[in-house]
Structures are given as structure tokens and as C-alpha cells.
């Protein structure tokens, strides 16, 4: 556990050079959100942007590692390949959750200051879960691609894989509708359990992605 903590500390310390950029981004997010018409939109926009923004931010640590060929060096330390991958997932998932929490707090404050209304935390929570699902989908595809192809090639592969999944999902949906399958009803019934569906989807996505990444990294010649 300490080893994973050490790796996360390394990544967080690397990211400190981005401190000012991060603050500027948060200010921009706030400014863009405030420009929305209703306080509900402000809240939703800020939560979504903070979740996506901080989630993507942590992915930058892969670039640092690649620049210094750190993976090779890390594996000479008392660490296993699995621990190296696990630490990355912990960082990425952790920063996404922290991003959504900061988003909820900031949007609650802004909503209260602007309208004197108490913000609807359930709505904000749902919005943040949606944001986590969105960024989770991107990260779940992106991280194994980075382990397999590197940060540069990984981006291209990620777009190919994402486009492939989107096409496949769209195709299945289209075929389902053509075949008069009750897809619309299925989505409506799922809507009742939306928070649980989102949480399960996020856990399953990251779980599959983690297993693929461990498989790739365990065999990788570094």
C-alpha cells in the first residue's frame, strides 16, 4: 500500500508545475458557468467541467513518465508491474472524484451567492455521476491505449477505439429499433435507477480497463 502511495505522491508532485494552469482553468470554468442563464445551468456546467477537467489533468502524468522513461526505472524499485498500473488508476479515478466534489462545492457556493437558493444537491450529484461516467469512458479506453502504444500513438488509437465503440453502440441501437425491440422502454425503466446504473457502469468500465492495462503492462518489454 505504501508503494502505491509513493507512486501517487510522485505523480501529484509532478503535477505541481501545473498549479497555476489549474487555477486559471478553474477560474475559466467558473466564468463560463456564470455566463449561463439559470443557476441550475451554472451548477450543472461547473460540476461537469470540474469533473472532466481534473480527470483529464491526471492523465498528463503519463507524459511525464514517458519523457523520462520512468516506467523502466520504476520497475527497478521494489514495486510490481501491477502496483505501477494500480497507482495510475487510483490517481486518475481519485482526481476525477475530487474534481466532481470541488465542482459540487463551488457550484453550491455560486448558486447560493447568486440566487440565495439552497442548491439541489441530488441534481448536482447526478450531474457529477454523469461527468464521471463520461470521463470514465474516455479514460477507460485511453489508459490501456497509452500502455500499449505510448502517449502520442495512444491518442490516435483511443479515437479509433472510441469511434468503433460509438459505431457499434449506434449500430446495435439502430438494429434494435428496426427490429421493434423495446429499447426506449428499457432506457425509461433504467432511468428510475439512474444513480445505481451510473455507479455500476463506472465501476465495470474502470474494472475492465484496469485488467486490460495490467495484462498489457505485465508483458511489456520496457
Amino acid at each position, binding site marked *: 500500500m*505504501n*508503494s502505491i*502511495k*509513493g*507512486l501517487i*505522491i*510522485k505523480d501529484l*508532485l*509532478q503535477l505541481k*508545475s501545473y498549479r497555476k494552469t489549474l487555477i486559471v482553468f478553474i477560474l475559466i470554468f467558473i466564468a463560463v458557468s456564470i455566463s449561463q442563464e439559470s443557476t441550475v445551468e451554472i451548477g450543472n456546467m461547473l460540476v461537469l467541467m470540474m469533473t472532466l477537467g481534473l480527470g483529464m489533468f491526471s492523465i498528463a502524468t503519463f507524459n*511525464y*513518465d514517458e*519523457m*523520462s*522513461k*520512468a516506467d*523502466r*526505472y520504476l*520497475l*527497478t*524499485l*521494489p*514495486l*510490481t508491474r501491477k502496483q505501477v498500473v494500480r497507482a495510475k488508476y487510483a490517481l486518475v479515478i481519485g482526481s476525477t472524484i475530487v474534481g466532481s466534489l470541488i465542482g459540487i462545492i463551488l457550484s453550491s457556493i455560486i448558486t447560493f451567492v447568486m440566487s440565495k437558493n439552497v442548491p439541489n444537491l441530488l441534481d448536482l450529484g447526478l450531474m457529477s455521476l454523469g461527468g464521471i461516467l463520461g470521463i470514465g469512458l474516455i479514460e477507460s479506453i485511453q489508459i490501456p491505449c497509452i500502455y500499449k502504444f505510448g502517449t502520442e500513438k495512444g491518442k490516435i488509437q483511443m479515437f479509433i477505439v472510441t469511434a468503433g465503440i460509438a459505431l457499434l453502440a449506434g449500430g446495435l441501437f439502430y438494429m434494435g429499433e428496426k427490429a421493434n425491440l423495446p429499447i426506449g422502454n428499457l432506457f425509461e425503466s433504467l432511468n428510475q435507477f439512474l444513480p445505481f446504473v451510473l455507479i455500476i457502469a463506472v465501476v465495470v468500465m474502470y474494472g475492465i480497463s484496469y485488467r486490460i492495462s495490467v495484462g498489457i503492462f505485465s*508483458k511489456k*518489454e*520496457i
Partner: protein
Amino acid sequence: MENILEVKNLSKKYQDFELKNINIALPKGMIMGIIGENGAGKSTTIKSILNLIQADKGEIKIFGLDYQKNETKIKEDIGVVLDDSFLSEYLTPNDINKMMKQIYKNWDETLYFKYIEDFHLPKDKISKDYSSGMKMKLKIAVALSHHPKLLILDEPTSGLDPVARNEILDIFQDFIQDESKGILVSSHITSDLEHIADYITFINHGEIVLSKTRDELLENYGIVKCSAEEFQKIASKDYVKYKKNRYEYDVLVENKFEFKKKYDAPIVDKPTIEEIMLIYIKGEK
């Protein structure tokens, strides 16, 4: 003598390169230098030993333990310096300390900062702003600060000026004062190894062509400089290889004393490790 590192029949085949049956035995208290030209297989050997690349076959024992089965445990007691790989250059020595104390059970913060101070490395400056010598010293400070028993160093002096190289070689010599420790170091700068190594292992085209003690190499081997006519009189079994120069032949012999006796040769030069390596690589038989 007990071996701190043993490599048996290590092989790895790539499309365009093959590491063939590498055997290494490094006794405790000794420094073994691996020499060879660029691309000879020095780094591949080190990476295979460290399991960074998966060998096709071979057995590696460190501290008497099977490396594959005890990798994490063994890595607690080895310090590694790689020429082309380290932590991000956006980390300061202070940052590295925060990370390493979580990773190594034996991390010695006091010792680490002593090295940092002795090497005149600014604690709060990112290593991106360091000179090449300072960056290498930082890698060495990290490699030494968990009291390792074995150092594995890949080209630790490449790209450094003579003063920095000398300082770094002194550090390795201090480390080996404790005779329970050992160092495996690869370098293409043979003069460095001539100063510090007890054993020299020469790798060429993925194969070990010789592995002997430094004294055996420098004291017994010899280079005979002779004319073409004189060279014709030397039996093939009495020399290792020869190199034809414009006016003379350089003939490498394994035992200069026997050679002197047999051929009544008055002068057989004492070779440097670089000369031995060059004749092995460029010479003919």
C-alpha cells in the same frame, strides 16, 4: 567466495540481435565491469537481469535467491542507475525523498540528504535545471540511500566530464569498501573500468568473448608489435587475434611471459583494456 550475483545461460532473441548464453558470477566485495561497443548487448544484459525484458531462457540469482521468484524482496537491496531512464525531471531532490520513503523499507532520509549535500545538489531545484553530472549524481544518491547490497549500473559515467567521472568512480570505490557488497557496472568507457573493476566481462555481438580478472588481463595479456615477416613466424595457437596496421601488425597474446620465452621476443607491450577490446572487435584470426 560467495557470489552476490549469478547469471546462467541468459539468452534473448530479437529479430536483428541475439543475446547468447550469458554467464556471470560476481563474488561479494568485487566490482565487475561489462565492456563492449554500443549495441554489443551490455544494456540488454542488464535489462534482462532486472527482468525489464523477458529473457527466453536463463537463471538469475541475486543474494543466492532466484530473482524471478523473489523480485520485490531482492529489489529492496539493490540500487540501480540506468543511463537513459529515471524519474521525471520536474521533481526536486526533496520531492524524490517524499516518494522514496514510501517505496523503500530501508530508505535513509538522513543519508540521502547527506549525499545531496556532499554532491552540492540544490534540494529545491527541479533536476531539469541540473547539468548532466548533477543529474547522474542525483541518480547515484537515490541508488545508494536505502543501504543496497548490490549496485547495478548501466553506463553511469557516459556523457560526463573527466572530473565528474572521477568523483563518481570514487563513490563506487567507497561503496565497495564493505566487502559484503558488490557492483555490476556496464560502460563503453573502458578506462573508467580499468581504474575500479576487479573483473572485466567483454560482450561482443551478444556473446561474452572474455571474462577475467582485471589483473589477469592487464598483467598476462600482451600486444606484440611486429612486421609482416615476423608475424608469419608466429603460430596461430600462440595468439588471440591480430590487427594489421599500415606498417606493422598488432598481435594480441594471452600469456606474454610464455610468448616471450617461446619466440625470444624482447618487447611485448602491456595492453590497456581498450586495446584488448579493439583487437578483439577489429582483429582477425
